[in-house]
């Protein structure tokens, strides 16, 4: 018995801390970086933050590819501002992640080396100009639905970052809708381009932006739903998540259908119809088959997005080294350029996980 005493004391201390932590979260209080938190909580928040930050940065690519081809100077300005916002969101989120004791350089390393991933939504190509509007309307629209509850997520720095991000994302959705509206009111060829883009982006948005099915109603089999529900329950108990993936997915479909009708575009799911009884639209459940089909893992584009990021990072290594060397030798400091200019490999925690999709 006596040999067990110290361990028991430590465990009791941990239990007490956990109880206090859960009470704090239960009361809707924010968890701040210096507060004690369970390891599991810390890992879960960090994983979500990192994936979210990576998605902002990788998400710049499909639209960024059209900056030089925007068909009016007004649309070019809007698109530059949007891609710029995404870079800004990436920065807020990496900064929020850094409050958990990791280094941005290490998170970027994890992304570049495939240990962490961005949302698989962006593993799809932006083939036409209409894709830029569709991405803004559908994927940013999905992001807003996902992220609105995150403005109240339990980890303080994450919630604060999300409040800024959400305002801008809502603006992007309107801009995307407006871009598509112009195309739909244009020539038949323009409208066909818009429909084609919506046909290709619907599934990535509805399946991947919300993560895998986590309820039986959402189309998961009983066992998978149980696992999904357990993860979601844990995240909800800790106040990291507020809703299941499938709840948010249904909310997204509800918001898109009337907008698509106003645009005169068809969402490529024949099962979409109003369900009077439920007061929601029915749609093809995103079961695991649908989800995996949307993932399109290990495709040309999945590789290309990371390769593009890695190339930019490697090409810029000499610039970051120069900025760091300059900052080190200037007495009045020079932090502006050196943010991710530091040496790699000294972070306290490396991302080990291939995180799942949650934009």
């Amino acid at each position, binding site marked *: 018995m006596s040999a067990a005493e110290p361990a028991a004391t430590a465990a009791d201390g941990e239990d007490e801390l956990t109880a206090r932590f859960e009470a704090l979260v239960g009361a809707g209080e924010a968890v701040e970086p210096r507060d004690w938190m369970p390891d599991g909580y810390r890992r879960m928040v960090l994983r979500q933050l990192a994936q979210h930050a990576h998605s902002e940065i990788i998400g710049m690519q499909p639209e960024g590819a059209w900056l030089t081809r925007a068909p009016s*100077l007004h649309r*070019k300005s809007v698109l530059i501002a949007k891609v710029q916002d995404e870079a800004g969101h990436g920065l807020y989120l990496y900064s929020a992640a850094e409050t958990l004791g990791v280094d941005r350089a290490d998170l970027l390393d994890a992304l570049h080396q495939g240990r962490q991933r961005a949302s698989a939504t962006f593993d799809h190509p932006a083939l036409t100009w209409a894709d830029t509007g569709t991405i803004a309307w559908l994927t940013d629209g999905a992001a807003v639905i996902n992220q609105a509850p995150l403005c109240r997520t339990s980890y303080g720095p994450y919630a604060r970052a999300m409040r800024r991000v959400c305002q801008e994302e809502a603006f992007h959705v309107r801009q995307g809708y407006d871009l598509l509206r112009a195309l739909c009111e244009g020539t038949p060829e323009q409208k066909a381009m818009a429909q084609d883009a919506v046909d290709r982006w619907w599934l990535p948005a509805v399946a991947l932006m919300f993560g895998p099915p986590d309820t039986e109603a959402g189309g998961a089999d009983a066992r998978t739903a149980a696992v999904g529900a357990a993860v979601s329950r844990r995240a909800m108990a800790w106040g990291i998540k507020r809703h299941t993936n499938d709840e948010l997915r249904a909310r997204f479909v509800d918001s898109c259908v009337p907008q698509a009708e106003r645009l005169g575009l068809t969402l490529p799911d024949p099962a979409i119809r109003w369900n009077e009884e439920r007061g929601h639209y029915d749609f093809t459940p995103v079961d695991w088959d649908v989800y995996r089909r949307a993932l399109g893992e290990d495709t040309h584009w999945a590789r290309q997005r990371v390769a593009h990021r890695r190339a*930019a990072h490697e090409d810029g290594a000499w610039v970051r*080294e120069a900025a760091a060397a300059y900052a080190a030798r200037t007495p009045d400091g020079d932090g502006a350029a050196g943010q991710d200019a530091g040496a790699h490999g000294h972070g306290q925690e490396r991302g080990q996980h291939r995180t799942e999709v949650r934009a």
Partner: protein
Amino acid sequence: MATTTERATATEADGRTDPRLAVQLLRLGDDALVLGQRLCQWITRAPTIEEDLALSNIALDLVGQARQLLTLVGRLDGTGRDEDDLAFARTDREFTNALLTELPNGDFAATVARQLVYTHYAVAYYGALGGCADPELAAFGQRAAKETAFHRLHADTWTERLGLGTAESARRMQEGLDHVWAYTAELFDEDDLLRDLAAAGTAPSPAPLRPGWERSTTEVITRAGLTVPSPRWRARGGRAGLHTEEFASLVAELQSVRRQFPGGTW
């Protein structure tokens, strides 16, 4: 003696035209548009996320300046063309930007060098434009000078960081300066048109701004431990629509979507 109100009409939408002023504003508008287009090519490829942000910010300002200038051009030249007609419906031979602004990006140092020489020129020119007779154009000049002063600060700061950073960055920064220097003279070229506009107080000539530009760029380059290049040749041709070979593909890319959908609305 003309009152301010009477003078104001030159650029207002009252149907009065000034095709010669339009020629000069088209040069400025094309400079801004083409440089903005080049900077767009950096976005998602910059050395840090901060630089993706900074370069997109600068590109956004340049496109904004181009829009205002091209709108004025279509009004003043009597054709009634809007900013998009001018950006998307001209051939590359009709663009009158200085060759400097169309130079391919090269590495980050080459881009910083191009930004350095352009922004020191543009702040001075827009500042001078801020004193011109037409109040709308003067207000544009003042605003553009203020915006471009931030771009100049960005270029100055990076020139110094790279010049005093590592041996490699100093070498690349010097190479960048050596590369762009021959393209700077064109920015200050003066022709009859500019002499007339300047004499009338309609728009300034850039020629008298050159000594000040030399002083201010030399100061930054020296502070960065680098050498002001002395090229044995100078580029010319942009103002006459004689561009580099790379320019045709820049314009083709710029206009591709719009040309693919004739009669489209955007």
